[in-house]
């Protein structure tokens, strides 16, 4: 039923699915908890750009080519499944097209990743933590902006 709701929201243009079978069975917990990797190591835009960025399979292979051949094969399979020119991930986070959130600005302001992305880093299968959609999400954002004395002008996010 959750899937039905998610698809309904997706069809209504409201957002992405809460979770999905990824072409590559990526395990956040192994990387973040066990290996102590920082988010920015794969999501390279978070410190300097509006976008966070998703790693390409080539990025993965920078480490995996040596160590974990089994996983490297999974990567290759995932890459093939995704097809050329497409990054092999199903996006879980999407906001309305008229809104834009700058990762860099939030990180600079001291908002930790977990504030919006919850325990994704500890998850085995990534799922969206933020269940708010549309205006509900907007008021959640605005509460935080008001608390931190960040700009409440519409154009801050809607541009």
């Amino acid at each position, binding site marked *: 039923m959750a899937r039905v709701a998610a*698809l*309904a929201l997706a069809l209504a243009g409201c957002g992405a699915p809460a979770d999905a079978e990824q072409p590559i069975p990526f395990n956040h917990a192994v990387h973040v908890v066990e290996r102590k990797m920082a988010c920015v190591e794969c999501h390279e835009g978070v410190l300097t750009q509006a*976008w966070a960025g998703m790693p390409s399979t080539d990025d993965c292979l920078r480490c995996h080519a040596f160590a974990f051949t089994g996983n490297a094969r999974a990567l290759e399979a995932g890459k093939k499944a995704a097809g050329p020119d497409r990054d092999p991930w199903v996006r879980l986070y999407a906001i309305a097209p008229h809104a834009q959130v700058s990762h860099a600005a939030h990180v600079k302001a001291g908002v930790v990743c977990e504030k919006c992305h919850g325990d994704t880093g500890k998850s085995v299968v990534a799922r969206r933590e933020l269940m708010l959609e549309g205006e509900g999400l907007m008021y959640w954002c605005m509460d935080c902006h008001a608390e931190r004395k960040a700009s409440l002008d519409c154009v801050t996010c809607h541009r």
Partner: protein
Amino acid sequence: MKPPDVPLTALTRREFLQATGAAAGAIGLAAFPGCKPEWFGDGERVPSGPESWYFATCTFCPSLCGTRVRVVNGNAVAVRGNPAHPKNAGALCPRGVAGLQHLYDLDRVMQPAVRRAKDAPLERVSWDEALDLVARKLEELTPALVIDGSRGLDADLARRFAGAVGGHYLSTVYTGARYAWDYERTRYAMFFGHEFLEDAPDLMDSLRAFAQLRGRAKLVMVGSRFGVSAQKADEFVAVRPASEGALARAIGGRMEIDDAATATGLPTATIERLKREFTASAPQVAIGWRLLPDAQEALLWLNQVAGTFGKSGGLSVALPPPFGQWEEQPQPAARPLPAAAAVLVGALRPAHPPAGFVVALSPTLDDAASSANVVLPTTTWLEQEAVHVPVAAGRQVVAYSHPAKELRRVADARPAGQVLIDIAQRMKDARRHFAWPSYHLALRERLVGVHDAQRGSIKEELFTPFMEKLAAAGVWTDERVTNLATYAAEPAPWRAPAGEGLTLLTHATTTLGEGEGANLPWMQELAGWQHHIGWDTWIEVHPKHGFASGDIVEVASARGNVRARVVATEAIHPEAVAMPRGGGRTAGRWAKGRGADVAALLEDPGPTRVTLRRA
């Protein structure tokens, strides 16, 4: 609307129907069964991602402005001026910005195509097949005519190609003397028949000069049409059409003022004052454009009398940069020969399409390419490694551009120069003149000379770091000024131009240009902004002729006739009509059939007289 990211195949039909129903309900569409949510979309956003910038030289006009192109996710998403470029210092004209619509033109030639029979459709073939065919045909059908609309290195290679195949070379872009106007120091500028803010041999110079000279120099516009240039000039001198030559002679002291007054319709006092002002305000320049040859002569001479050539604040002829010379330049045939084949290079529109076997090297399926026997896709200026030589007063400039590797290819296209090399290398005789394995190396040989000169803004001992710095800056300049004095002969006495009827004045617009902008929708919609006209050709007519704005008239000259939409306005001399250039293309989905091509009316040398008839 963004498609859902959930794999739909994994859903049961029941789930899907539930979801669709819920979605429809959520949007409140229950009252309209069958409505798709697209009806009420929330807009779209292109995802952002890593961005990169690269330099490109705009070749839409002879100004050759330096641009910076922004690439996000493999797509070019903005064209801006290069602030470090001496030509445009970060500014751009509308055509440069619209380069994006040229790059992503819906009529791009995607791969080589061949027309097997006369009226057969174009058929896609491989590069090898097309090049072999062209090389074989050009060897069979000699001599060949090379008609060239390209600039820079491509043009050099086209000329060389014409020589190598023993053909005649004809350039359709302006190749006359390139006067550099040292406008920053000018005190008095007279523009003769020259819509200097719309139509200029060097539009960027003109636009920037006007803004910088405002209040510091006096700008005088002499003409028979009151356009935006006339308004923005400090003084507008309304003369009878085609009489600019008389005024130029009178100011230069080559014609009695009373005679000039009769010819131009100006009071003698005005001519006397203009003469006084012009002579007394050194440094001064007199610039003409779209004039009769005799007026152009008179202007050259006027500048010479005033001593503007080679002087600070005046006009000079640019020296070529210290390019490395290619060995042994084969010379094209001096006179046009009866050609059996033609090679068309770059975006151009020959007035008379050549007969015989025609090869078009073109980025888009424009007028010339769409009727050719073979079409070879070339890159646009946004995708091509190129070297250009913009003319700037007091400087030598070499602009180098190289597209970012992130830019996704739009078509299986090659630089025109590369295509010419590829063809020549498949020909027995021409091969020896095109010994470079690639266009890149031909270009490199040129730049080696600039490196070897060891002067200007980039000096490096080794060539590789020199190239790196050049690529990072986009431009090499040298302050070394080499002004050349020029000599103009005394003009013949003024003779009133023959013919009767209304004199047709034509001018390019900042948008359509000579037709470069015709297949760019942004340019079409803004073509007649001052009259709220777009996507059409208009004719400015004085109201006394009895036509009302919006009427469609047939404009006939001795050479042909076209249709145009009337703009009845007081802003035109009653003895003249004015029409914009660049309309009436025969190919291109945005250009085809939009407006009329005034080139079909123009007489050589002119003036062109026309009659109007309500259509």
